[in-house]
């Protein structure tokens, strides 16, 4: 339906938007909360699933209710 109405999917479905720049920076929008946060692993809850970023020296530069910026050496991005 969202496609037919040409509405952005993140708004309609509440899907998370992940923007990765190289392997050192990532922006996450539309997430629900932080489940786990260590230097090696950041686990986030989104509406439909969990998102896990693994790597080295991960660091949350800032985070607000609907957006966060992660920097560090990202090794793996996994959904489950």
């Amino acid at each position, binding site marked *: 339906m969202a496609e037919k109405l040409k509405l952005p999917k993140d708004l309609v479905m509440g899907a998370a938007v992940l923007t990765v720049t190289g392997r050192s920076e990532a922006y996450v929008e539309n997430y*629900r*909360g*932080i489940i786990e946060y260590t230097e090696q692993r950041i686990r986030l809850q989104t509406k439909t699933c969990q998102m896990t970023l693994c790597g080295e020296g991960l660091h949350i*530069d*800032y*985070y607000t209710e609907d957006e966060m910026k992660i920097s560090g050496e990202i090794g793996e991005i996994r959904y489950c």
Partner: protein
Amino acid sequence: MLTNLLKFLKGYVVIRLSGYSPERFLNLCSHHKIVLWGLRSVGADYEMCVSIHGFLKLRPLVRKTRTKIVILERHGLPFWLHRYRSRKLFLGGALLAASLLYVLSLFIWNIHVEGNYSLSDEVILDYLSSEGILHGMAKRDVHGEEIEAKLREHFQEITWTSAEVKGTRLIIHVQENEDVTFEEIPGEEPADLVASESGKIVSMIVRSGTPAVLEGMEVEKGDLLVGSRVEVLDDAGEVANAYYVHADADILIQRSEYYEASFPMHYEKKIYSGRKRTTYYLTIGRKRLDISLPHRGSYEQSDAITSEWPLKITENFYLPVVFGKITEQEYTPSDAVYTKKEATAHAKEELSLFLEKLRIKGLQIIENNVKIEINSDKCTAYGTYILEESGVKEQAPVMEIPNQEEGTDVSDSRRIYF
């Protein structure tokens, strides 16, 4: 940059979070719209920055999640002000100095005159002060165009002025008309040129008017040199019409003058004893204040050299305080007689000083036949010298009254037709 400035102004703290479920605490924070930044995990704990405003709202969340927070660092203006609260006077002084600087910058502290050549700074400054343009006046009272107009009006010599305010300086640029000396008749009106001195004409350059004399002619004082009436001749050589102009010419007149000066051969010579003393004083307004201790004894005869240094803030802003120094040198008078050589040198010096004065006035010395004669009690210098000078003076012409009104343009005062 802007966010950093805002963070600094509002103030923030770095806190360490430890306990049972820190992630839940973080989620609650974002849910309550408490902004956290610089989040780092240190071992099992987290460190983060939070604004003072946000920090004050953390207490219920801490209780709910059973975590503990410790303040590690405090940053920003509110903490800074608190830390230096005992230095209010210092801050006050800094503010006072800044405001004083601002207030002082609202006034003119230096008036500088530039480009003046024959008019001295003092003359212009005196006139300006009589018009209310003074050192220490408010900058907003300076109206450049008004000053310019007044200066041009008051000083005939000034052809162009510009008043400029630069910081706390008022700079007055002046352009002078250099040959203003014989501007007795306004440039528009007809004028004759007559000889100001008797003598022989050696050179003559006429720019306007009808020459009445020739080079090499002898003229008397008051003789007409260049007439203002210009005649227009017709084919038959008769005067068709005539009009009057403002005559203008450079005419050099040569004349000889007699010089005589004498001085007695006997004079009083000062023999300095070598004793000196110096007194310092201060003049404030009209009161004089001696700074040095009074001297014991007094000199019978002495030379005193007084030097004064008026205190001034800027180039031309004098304070009513003058610092002075008097140096006295004791001497004993004794009679002396000039030797021939000395007397000649003295007489020559007097003569050259006299001629130099003439030269400064714009006269040119062509020849000097002054002899020096010495007899037992007097030294006399006498003789003639020949000089050249610009010898013209303006004079209102005697105009012939027009006998017919035909074709006369009344509004044009320069041209009168016959």
